[in-house]
């Protein structure tokens, strides 16, 4: 007895890539879809459950064109929540790898490198959670010089490299150094009590986002960043220097960063800044880092109220 040679399906291809093996355990419960915030915040067509289904049903082109393939940032909130313990982000990564091999490209806008500013220090490539930047060599004025380049299929746009780049040579649309600095008030502008740098993913609930935007301009100035990994302590200092009395950096709870590690990076940066404040015995200015969990509905209100109270004696003295 012999069986005809098995046809290699799309699912077989995905399963052959490490991480893709457990694809077929999915029983389509939808936990991943609602745990993930991409559909609610960014892309209505984002749906990991459906992508897995497309793989199983041999819908290769649809899968390659699906935003799910390209927008998963491997935060693994879904993996922790999946009752079948499928490492969904790894399955998606397997699909993405096949898509890239097939010549598809990411629809996302990657960070941009300005070679005129780049010193080739390689820090961007080291800090990136996705290893999107790398260094390459080229001849400039007869000498070999190094510059960063970014793999646009890997870049998820978290801005961690932007926050780390010493010379401002990497920028991301909307949160370049100049764009952030333009939101820090100059002396001739209204100086709010606090500036808050808010990671767009840390406030799960629409109600909390609305609340944040509802504070008057002379009280709270909101600067949106894609991830607290984008934070540059320089900006916090500049804000305080401008007369703002408190800086609140709002990011995700440990283990819940949308870009794997940005919240930890921010914790390190701001932790170092805090140590230096203490070492220099500079009177303690309010720079706070709060990490809000997906279940902490309404916490942002308390955090804002607390920091406003903390800075208000100074306000009365004025």
């Amino acid at each position, binding site marked *: 007895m012999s069986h005809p040679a098995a046809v290699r399906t799309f699912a077989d291809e995905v399963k052959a890539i490490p991480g893709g093996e457990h694809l077929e355990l999915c029983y389509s419960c939808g936990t991943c879809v609602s745990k993930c915030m991409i559909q609610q915040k960014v892309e209505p067509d984002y749906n990991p459950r459906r992508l897995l289904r497309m793989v199983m049903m041999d819908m290769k082109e649809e899968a390659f064109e699906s935003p799910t393939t390209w927008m998963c940032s491997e935060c693994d909130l879904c993996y922790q929540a999946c009752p079948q313990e499928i490492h969904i982000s790894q399955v998606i990564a397997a699909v993405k790898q096949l898509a890239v091999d097939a010549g598809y490209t990411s629809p996302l806008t990657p960070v941009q490198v300005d070679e005129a500013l780049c*010193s*080739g220090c390689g820090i961007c490539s080291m800090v990136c959670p996705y290893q999107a930047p790398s*260094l390459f060599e080229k001849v400039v004025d007869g000498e070999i010089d190094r510059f960063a380049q970014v793999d646009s299929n890997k870049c998820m746009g978290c801005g961690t490299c932007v926050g780390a780049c*010493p010379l401002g040579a990497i920028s991301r649309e909307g949160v370049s150094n100049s764009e952030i600095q333009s939101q820090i008030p100059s002396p001739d502008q209204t100086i709010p009590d606090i500036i808050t740098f808010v990671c767009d993913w840390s406030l799960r609930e629409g109600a909390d986002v609305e609340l944040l935007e509802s504070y008057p301009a002379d009280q709270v100035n909101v600067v949106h960043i894609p991830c607290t990994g984008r934070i540059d302590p320089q900006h916090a200092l500049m804000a305080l220097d401008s007369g703002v009395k408190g800086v609140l950096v709002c990011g995700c709870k440990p283990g819940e960063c949308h870009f794997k590690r940005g919240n930890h990076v921010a914790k390190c940066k701001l932790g*170092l800044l805090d140590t*230096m404040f203490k*070492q220099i015995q*500079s009177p303690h*200015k309010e720079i706070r880092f709060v990490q809000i969990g997906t279940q902490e509905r309404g916490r942002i209100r308390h955090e804002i109220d607390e920091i406003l109270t903390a800075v208000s004696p100074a306000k009365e003295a004025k």
Partner: protein
Amino acid sequence: MAAEAKPKLAFYWAGSCGGCEITITELGMRLVDVSELADIVFWPAAMDFKYDDVRGLADQEIDLCFFNGAIRNAENEEFAHLLRRKSKIMVAFGSCSHLGGIPGLANMYDIEALCERVFDTSPSLDNSRGIRPQTITKVPEGEIKLPPLHQSVKHLAEITDVDYFMPGCPPVVDQVWKVFQAALNGELPPKGSVIGADEKSVCDVCPREKGEPGFRISEFKRPHEVDLDPDKCFLTQGVICCGPVTRAGCGTPCLNGNMPCRGCYGPAEGIIDQGAKLASFIGGLIDTDDPEKLQSILDSIVDPAGTFYRFGLAHSIISKMKYE
């Protein structure tokens, strides 16, 4: 430039170690060329001038003044103002006048704590009578005056208008020569520029092999704790290097000696606060795989403020906030 109208040069040292002065002497025979092209009207470290000689000059009579040292006391400040008035071009020369330099690290402490350390508790000192210097001391010959200390160390631009900044601790001699030539030839860039240095950072000229993508630091070490590989980026060896944020132009003597950049050339172009930017990339390099360990990794950095702001503390926003 006609021989009889030779431009006038002045050198002054305020709160400094004297290293910048030595750099100028290191010009060696080139100093002879300088003296042929210009008149040195004031150089207390090398020549016998009195303060009154400066006071006697007309305003803006000095064409070019190289001012090194930080502003630590009233005398430093007085001379900064005086020389500014007497000079057409004022150059903050060296890290101390540019950024506050090493003396600026004193801003971590208040005056009383500093004096206690320097005059009472320093292990190399025997001051059992508890003598402290006084600003006015009566002696039979009259009064001896010492300039009073300021509450904080300032960099030159904090108290007066500065035309150019020439970084370095000390500035390297070839850069000094280039600046002299440019100045004497009237080829200086627009006012406010940093001169005698490059725009990009030390990394731009550092030949060492950079870290692999995704490289992270799980423990920081000081240079003496590691057998440093001369071909690899210091950061990849867990050693903090200020190269990424520090302006190039020094000729990398530290790197050539297998030591990390200490940051004396100050922030590279585009950086507002050298230490904060350092924290910004160091924070990104820390291994975050085990969040429980973050604090212990951070704690392995010995003296962050002294390391990140070794030359620039007096110029930093944190220091500014403290003394506002």
